[in-house]
């Protein structure tokens, strides 16, 4: 069935959130079976930045909820949103 690529937008709790630490925590929170394939900061507004995260996983894994949940639990994360999904 191939590999699925998923784009996620991670919003911090405040503009003062330490983005380097947040990115490092994201790296460490990626669940087993999911590969981190890209991470970049994106300026939103009024000093706020989001982290755009790209991951891949097998199509057979069935959804990206485990990644969304794992990233949502990181201290300092306000929300996690899927921005895009497709086959690799």
């Amino acid at each position: 069935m191939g590999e699925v690529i998923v784009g996620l937008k991670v919003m911090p709790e405040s503009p003062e959130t330490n983005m380097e630490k947040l990115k490092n925590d994201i790296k460490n929170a990626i669940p087993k079976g999911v590969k981190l394939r890209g991470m970049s900061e994106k300026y939103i507004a009024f000093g706020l930045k989001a982290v755009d995260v790209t991951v891949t996983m097998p199509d057979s894994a069935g959804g990206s909820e485990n990644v969304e949940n794992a990233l949502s639990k990181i201290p300092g994360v306000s929300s996690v949103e899927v921005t895009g999904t497709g086959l690799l």
Partner: protein
Amino acid sequence: MAEKPHMNLVFIGHVDHGKSTTVGRLLLETGVVPAHVIEEYRKKAAEKGKATFEFAWVMDALKEERERGLTIDVAHKRFDTSKYYFTIIDAPGHRDFVKNMITGTSQADAAVLVVSAAEGDGVQAQTKEHVFLARTLGVTQLIVAINKMDAAKPGYNEKRYNDVKEDVTKLLKTVGYKIDTVQFVPISALKSDNIIKPSENIKWFKGATFLQTLDNLKVPEKPTALPLRLPVQDVYTITGVGTVPVGRVECGVMKAGDKIIFQPANVAGEVKTIEMHHEQIPQAVPGDNVGFNVRGISKKDVKRGDVVGHSDNPPTVPKTFTAQVAILQHPSAIAAGYTPVFHCHTSQVACIFEELQKKLDPKTGQVKEEKPEFLKTGDIAIVKIRPTRPMVIEKAKDIPPLGRFAVRDMGQTVAAGLCIDIEKK
């Protein structure tokens, strides 16, 4: 030279009908397969004394390269035609990814439905599901690529094309596609028939090539004429600025100075300033991801899942709503009283299936059963839904981006659907 208009193109269809091969062929024929992949292949082919170009090898090499590569982004499949610049979304096979397609922010502007004409293929359960999904996603422009014409029995025969076309036509009509706007094209992605130039093997076909059907698409207009709807993603208190909600404008236009209301919070305020990236902007239009400073509200008044609209045309918070749903996967049966979680824009609310009104025949769209006792995987039905707490949802016909939802339960995407009517409070 001015940049070409951009389109997001989603490829849908049964997993074995050649979706990925069609995408690969398109990338190869439009010249976006990296030169080093082709060169490497030429060398290997020459070593083995092979003269013919083996498409499957290039597909494998590309796949390997993508899997091996370190960084990649969701919009990694891009190609150009003479008119447009396309980004391809190849729909995953697993149903649990349907939620991502519905709530994801990268909207498809057009869809290519790939249906195999090989013997025993044609319209399959997944074809039906994906057609329903395309409709739910609000994709109105559709190309039907009838693929594997080389594997029809006998190969490339017109009758098989017409038979498959007729079956697909019936299916499309059931979900409400206007058939005269749908483009049908016979192809063989594997053998490169009718992809960029007319094929000798399909002489009987006088219509467009696959690439021409893509150029016939139109860039959808931004829904600026619709009422303003901006689902809130997060809310911040920013020192020196004040309360700043963040979100994406789905439809309408929001300007600085506008009087707005957040629903279902039922809190009103006035937009002071709007920012996108590093800049202050006078107005935000559909597709813009913005932060905006609101006078008259505090962070605790509004939250993720609330929707912003103008005070004189507020977002709808219904008592109940009527929906058309497709049951994608459920281990047993769904009866009245079932209460899964509805994912609609940025909100997640448990909703009750209060009344199962009608079961539809997926082949004809006609009512198959009035007041069914239960629904099972594969059923399409009209149901009455009651949210367990206030939520914003709109009639899909009036405000498409806020009328679709995915239904989740037990860690699975159980169903997807559209709101077709509203019972106001």
